[in-house]
């Protein structure tokens, strides 16, 4: 089985390196195909491993030593257990589809080859992230996906906004990574190892305060990668990247790494439920917070990005409350329908010649039926309508919140569900139905190539049926992570489900009803709360005004005023003083013999005077 493991891990790397050879060349179709095939191989291996783990239990290999210094030993070790194999399967599955999709999507891009190289590199990093058997290994993948995200967001580097967004994403992640590093150091100095097994074995023995600190630090890391408040701004901006990238990285896989981390470190977090609750609270907040921003946004991809953010919040609620398998389950289903949604959006974009404003679309159903259907399916799944995948996972999360007695959280999530349903269908309505606004701009949309649509079908299918794997999934995953039992009376449970479904449906209904009739009036846009939402609560502005600009100003100040005018100037002034004193001392050397003699005599007389004073004193 080790061969499967290594194949699953390294075939994306091989793909990336192979394609990288042609990176600078013009488009070569075979690079896309080879890359897709190799990712597919990885996917197949992952599925084999899934079966294998299901049958024989986890697989653990140590490839080689990496860092050894002092007492520290970090190997390259990989573990394929119930959690990681689920992640592997999800990642490789979505990746494969995205790769195939990209062959079509990136068809006309001159950096076609480079794109596949980056994309495969991302898959490799992600695999390392999920497969590593220690925290530092995870950190490698963690940073690796960050790098690939940077490369891919900034893929169209000639666009200022793209490279800006790429840098923003990288730096935001770095801030969180620092927290994570701190957590790692703390783990090391208390446990002496980074291996999951050792850490989890030692965790119960550690003082609670330390576990709490570790938990907080690790979660800070997760916050960055999963774009939780207040580090969330990068995710929306990251939509500057090509749409397949958004689908793969910023919806399905990378952003869920934070959730994965919390699930992975579940044994730590289960020791500190209050921290978990804090995580859950933040998650619930983000769920509503992000959904509210999605309500008013007009950018096709940003709406979906905010929805991703909101869904990540749901996952954190589950993970924070200790329902790890539910979090993981939502992670998986979300990966399917959200990537579908993005890829569909990609088709729309292509059709609209990269126009993203949904206000300028409308009535596309006529020209791109397949996409419209797929996106509607994904939206329904997102809204959590039975029997679509989203229903099963999301509903469970609400139940968990209710079960924990965290009614506040439940309420937030409940509202969030309603908002989700509304904005999803606002998007669908504005894009595919209603007035054909795009005609005004002289665009004649057409659907994507057939193979692209076919590639999306598996995702569409999964978005519909994935929910039904829930019992199997629970049984499988809870072999590793702690089980979670819901103790709500059945009646209440059904009531809750009904309520949730109800609010989702009413959200959909409201959206359909409203946008059938031309949407809201313009006057709404002048309302304070509309502007607040459309400006993303002014948070990006806040960051710009109170962090970035001051930092720039301060940096310039430090350089020009402190470094140049104080530190360097002090050094120079010392040198200049010495030099100037030389100029002064030079005056002694007047060249006049009389002066010379006087110096000699006066010098001696002064000494004599001192001598007399001194000897009088003695």
């Amino acid at each position, binding site marked *: 089985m080790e061969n499967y493991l290594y194949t699953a891990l390294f075939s994306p790397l091989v793909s990336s390196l192979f394609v990288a050879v042609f990176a600078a060349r013009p488009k070569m179709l075979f690079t896309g195909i080879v890359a897709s095939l190799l990712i597919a191989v990885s996917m197949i291996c992952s599925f084999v491993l899934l079966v294998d783990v299901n049958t024989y239990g986890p697989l653990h290999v140590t490839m080689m030593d990496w860092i050894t210094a002092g007492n520290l030993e970090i190997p390259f070790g990989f573990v394929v257990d119930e959690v990681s194999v689920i992640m592997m399967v999800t990642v490789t599955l979505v990746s494969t589809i995205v790769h195939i999709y990209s062959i079509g999507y990136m068809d006309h891009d001159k950096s076609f080859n480079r794109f596949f190289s980056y994309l495969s590199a991302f898959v490799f990093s992600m695999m390392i992230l999920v497969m590593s058997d220690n925290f530092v290994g995870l950190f490698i993948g963690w940073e690796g996906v960050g790098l690939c995200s940077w490369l891919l967001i900034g893929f169209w580097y000639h666009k200022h906004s793209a490279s800006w967004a790429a840098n923003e994403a990288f730096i935001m992640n770095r801030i969180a990574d620092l927290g994570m590093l701190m957590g790692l150091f703390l783990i090391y100095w208390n446990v002496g190892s980074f291996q999951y097994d050792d850490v989890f074995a030692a965790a119960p023995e550690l003082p609670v305060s330390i576990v709490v600190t570790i938990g907080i630090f690790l979660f800070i890391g997760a916050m960055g990668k999963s774009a939780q408040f207040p580090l969330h701004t990068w995710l929306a901006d990251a939509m500057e990247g090509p749409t397949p990238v958004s689908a793969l990285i910023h919806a399905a896989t990378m952003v869920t790494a934070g959730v994965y981390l919390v699930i992975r470190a579940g044994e730590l977090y289960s020791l500190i439920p209050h921290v978990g609750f804090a995580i859950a609270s933040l998650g619930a907040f983000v769920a509503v917070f992000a959904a509210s921003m999605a309500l008013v946004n007009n950018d096709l991809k940003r709406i979906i990005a905010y929805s991703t953010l909101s869904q990540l919040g749901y996952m954190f609620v589950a993970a924070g409350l200790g329902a790890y398998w539910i979090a993981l389950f939502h992670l998986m289903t979300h990966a399917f329908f959200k990537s579908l949604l993005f890829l569909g959006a990609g088709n729309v974009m292509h059709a609209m010649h990269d126009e993203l404003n949904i206000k300028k679309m409308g009535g596309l159903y006529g020209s791109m039926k397949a996409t419209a259907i797929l996106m509607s399916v994904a939206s329904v799944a997102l809204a959590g309508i039975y029997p679509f995948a989203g229903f099963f996972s999301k509903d469970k999360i609400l139940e968990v919140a209710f079960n924990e007695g965290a009614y506040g959280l439940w309420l937030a999530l409940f509202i969030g569900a309603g908002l989700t349903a509304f904005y999803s269908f606002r998007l669908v309505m504005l894009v595919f139905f209603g007035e054909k606004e795009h005609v005004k701009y002289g665009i004649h949309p057409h659907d994507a190539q057939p193979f692209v649509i076919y590639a999306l079908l598996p995702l569409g299918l999964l978005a519909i049926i994935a929910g039904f794997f829930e019992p199997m999934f629970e049984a499988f995953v809870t072999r590793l992570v702690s089980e979670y039992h819901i103790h709500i009376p059945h009646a209440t449970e059904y009531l809750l489900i009904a309520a949730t479904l109800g609010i989702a449906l009413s959200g959909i209904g409201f959206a359909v009803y409203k946008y059938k009739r031309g949407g809201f009036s313009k006057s709404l846009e002048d309302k304070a709360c509309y502007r607040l939402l459309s400006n993303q609560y002014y948070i990006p502005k806040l960051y710009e005004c109170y962090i970035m600009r001051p930092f720039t100003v301060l940096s310039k100040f430090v350089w020009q005023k402190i470094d140049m005018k104080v530190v360097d100037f002090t050094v120079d002034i010392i040198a200049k003083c010495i030099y100037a004193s030389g100029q002064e001392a030079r005056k002694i050397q007047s060249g006049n013999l009389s002066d010379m003699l006087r110096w000699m*005599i*006066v010098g001696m*007389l002064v000494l*004599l*005077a001192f*001598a*007399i004073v001194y000897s009088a004193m003695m």
Partner: protein
Amino acid sequence: MYEVIAFYLFAALTIAMFTIVVMSKNALYAMSALAGGMIFISGFFFLLDAEFLGVVQIVVYSGAIMALYAFGMMFFDTTRDVSEKMRSKKIAYTLFVLSAILMVVILSAPLVSSSVQANFPIVEHVGNVQMIGLVLFTKYLIPFELAAIMLLVAMIAGIVLASKKMDEHLNIEDEEIGNVKESR
């Protein structure tokens, strides 16, 4: 008693003479005063029973040295008044008073020791010249010889420096420089 009178007389005269040397604007006066001062100083030597030095003082200083200066002065044509541009007279006098006080304070301190054994004691009833001769040609033979060399050096120096050779101020080097000049 007569020693006291002599001392104060000579002292007053020497100080007066030397003050003239230092203050006079006329080089001739200064030189004459210097010569006078030297002679008066020899008076001290006689007072102090150092007859040999007294003689030497008169012969060497008043004779040789002053004659040299006199020749020098003729050569330099310094009979006219010299103008000494003192930047500030006050400072000069202050310095004088100060230095005089310092010197006097130091030298009036009880410097001498009562327990010192003379290295070359002056023997009673032996003439000063005799004694000096004895010490000079035993203990101080080497310095004496070296002094001879010094005088020789001074003589050579005087001859060389004042000789015609030095007037050909263009030296050989300069004559040969022509070709270098052309090449530039």
